[in-house]
């Protein structure tokens, strides 16, 4: 069976499921952000695969580029929050950070 659209969609689904699993089990806030990156990459693979095999244009590429931009913004803000959390609580484990106010 020659490689086609379903193969790429399967890779996207695998990345998405791995990211979901990481977000549900990880307790380190940075590792949670890595799970988000996996999910975004899975979605991006789907966008580009559909652009290649169904649409034929570059609209999917444009969407994937915007997803990358938003991932960069999300990583910057998320890691800033993680660093502030580490400074205030001395830990990055999301289970132990459960106070809004000291």
């Amino acid at each position: 069976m020659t490689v086609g659209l379903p193969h790429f969609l399967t890779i996207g689904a695998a990345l998405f499921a791995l990211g979901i699993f990481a977000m549900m089990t990880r307790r380190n806030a940075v590792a949670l952000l890595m799970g988000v990156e996996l999910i975004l990459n899975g979605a991006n693979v789907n966008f580009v695969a559909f652009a290649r095999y169904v649409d034929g244009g570059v609209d999917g590429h444009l969407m994937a580029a915007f997803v990358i931009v938003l991932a960069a913004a999300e990583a910057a803000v998320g890691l800033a929050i993680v660093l502030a959390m580490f400074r205030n609580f001395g830990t990055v484990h999301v289970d132990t950070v459960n106070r809004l106010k000291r």
Partner: protein
Amino acid sequence: MAADLVFYGFALLTVLAGCFVVFSRNVVHAGFALMFTLLGVAGLYAMLGADFLAVTQTVVYIGGILILVLFAVMMTRVPSQNAPRRGLDRMVPAGIFAVAIFALLYKVATGTSWPTATPGEALPTAKLIGVKLMTDAIFPFEFASLVLLVAMIGAAILIRERKVLPAEAPAEEAATEAPADEPEVTA
């Protein structure tokens, strides 16, 4: 066919490194495995004829976001014996949920008859994307720049050192409000 072998190589790299990201207990190792995942995805983009995106993925994700993530990992290290272990009580439901989602997506991906067209020759896409960004997608383009500016300012505000001015924090109020056994404000 050679292209199929290349696809399976990139797919294996992506998924195996992704598994390592998810299951590794060491967060630094997970961060380095994430690099191989992103590299594999960049290879898949290249196979799909998205040359601009493959380069963008390499430059922005591996050169930018991943470095940021590794910085954060290394700045927030705690001794590993203090790190709580991942319990089986949440591994099992999460595993069931993730496998169910993958099974559903796999069934949809392989069972649906997509209206596929035979893809033609892969042409350079950078010019097409540039023209589209400046014509059809000018509003999302400008909005993305605004989002990046706000994210930059927000990140800088979030991690700035808070200087407590003497006039803002009277000593007697702080002493009455804070319990005696609480540690002093460090940040």
